[in-house]
């Protein structure tokens, strides 16, 4: 008898049934981009990819959240520029290179940031699980990944509860307390969390074994994981964009200017 991976009724909301959102295509694009950005060197080609990644992130992520994340990334870029300026005081060669030398590593991060946001914030856990199921990974890889996706929200909720209980005891969790007593703070925060995780894992394991998982039973998907025409369209577009970035890297007249 196939083992059902159906989620709890609380997750059966109509919006999650809307499905689609090309999660698998976005995952594949993330995969390809992680290789391409290391190979590309030109700020022009990387900037082109970063612009496209931002557009892709905009299609799934709320504008306000996206603005916050990009502001944080820009802050980190400015920080790295500041560190570079300090380094340049000792290295005249670095001073001659100018600020563009910091741009390439930053653009690599910006591309991956946009693509990651488009997957991580643009899909519900049920959609991610369906997409993972569609990748046809073996059970010993599929199950830990499913558990990771499922447990992250409950771990965050557990952490909030632990932080609340610490606050009631008069322990403040802030950068200052972490700096003043890092070991004590992390111990107070994570020791109860490890106990909770061990208990949750035990309960999940019992539930999985009761459903026959791991006894050779075949997993059945609650939602279909077929790739649609939108996946094909997005992958085709991604191929064109990547080809464009290679052209900008090597063939475009403007590439020589960089």
């Amino acid at each position: 008898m196939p083992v059902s991976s159906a989620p709890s009724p609380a997750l059966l909301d109509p919006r999650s049934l809307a499905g689609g959102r090309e999660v698998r295509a976005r995952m594949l694009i993330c995969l390809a981009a992680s290789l391409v950005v290391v190979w590309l060197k030109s700020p022009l080609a990387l900037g082109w990819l970063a612009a496209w990644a931002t557009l892709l992130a905009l299609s799934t992520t709320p504008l306000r959240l996206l603005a916050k994340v990009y502001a944080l990334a820009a802050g980190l870029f400015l920080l790295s520029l500041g560190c570079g300026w300090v380094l340049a005081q000792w290295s005249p060669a670095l001073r001659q290179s100018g600020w563009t030398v910091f741009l390439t590593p930053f653009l690599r991060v910006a591309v991956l940031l946009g693509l990651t946001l488009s997957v991580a914030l643009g899909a519900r856990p049920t959609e991610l699980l369906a997409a993972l199921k569609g990748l046809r990974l073996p059970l010993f890889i599929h199950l830990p990944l499913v558990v990771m996706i499922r447990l992250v929200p409950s771990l965050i909720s557990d952490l909030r509860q632990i932080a609340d209980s610490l606050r009631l005891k008069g322990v403040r969790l802030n950068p200052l307390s972490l700096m003043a007593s890092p070991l004590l703070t992390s111990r107070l925060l994570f020791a109860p969390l490890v106990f909770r995780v061990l208990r949750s894992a035990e309960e999940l394991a019992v539930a999985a074994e009761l459903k026959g998982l791991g006894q050779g039973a075949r997993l059945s998907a609650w939602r279909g994981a077929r790739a649609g025409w939108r996946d094909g369209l997005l992958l085709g577009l991604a191929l064109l964009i990547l080809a464009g970035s290679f052209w900008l890297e090597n063939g475009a007249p403007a590439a020589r200017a960089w």
Partner: protein
Amino acid sequence: MPPSATLNPAPRRPYWQPRELILVGAFAALTKVAGVVIALAGGGMNPLSLALKNAVATVLLVVLLLKAPKFGVLTLYVVSQSIFSLLLLGGSLMLLPGLLPAGILCDLLIRGLGGYQKVWAVLVGVGVFDLLSKAIALGFSFLAFREDPRLFIMPAIFIGLGYLGSLLGLAGGLKFVKELRHAGLIRA
């Protein structure tokens, strides 16, 4: 035909049991969440929070290996984390070919040193794995900063600080394992 052959034969027990797979996933998720929480609580990724993040990750890895003492758990943990990072967190595919042999090597090392029931064997295995993974991260950073190798000093400092945190985590792991053993959660 003997009578026993007519009965349904007992299904072959797979090597990986759901209990172990779930534990691997749970600890991998915990490591990711812990990293984010420390970065947020530390007001950004400063040197202290960076070292602390690595220390917590090492402690959790030690606990996982003692809680699920089976050959291949370290490799499976590495693969799960890498695929998760690859697909959802913008991690790089280039790290996986390095991390996979590092995980297998350290699994073999732990087995060679006496198995997963011995705490010191696990500590040595995790210590070597941390060292190898930091070396791989250094190699990847060199690729990312290859336009101007002088900038490579920045990731090198950060990775070095991370390894110091991992060493701290080995000591913390030893202490934490004693507590978990006292609580009856670990038998090693």
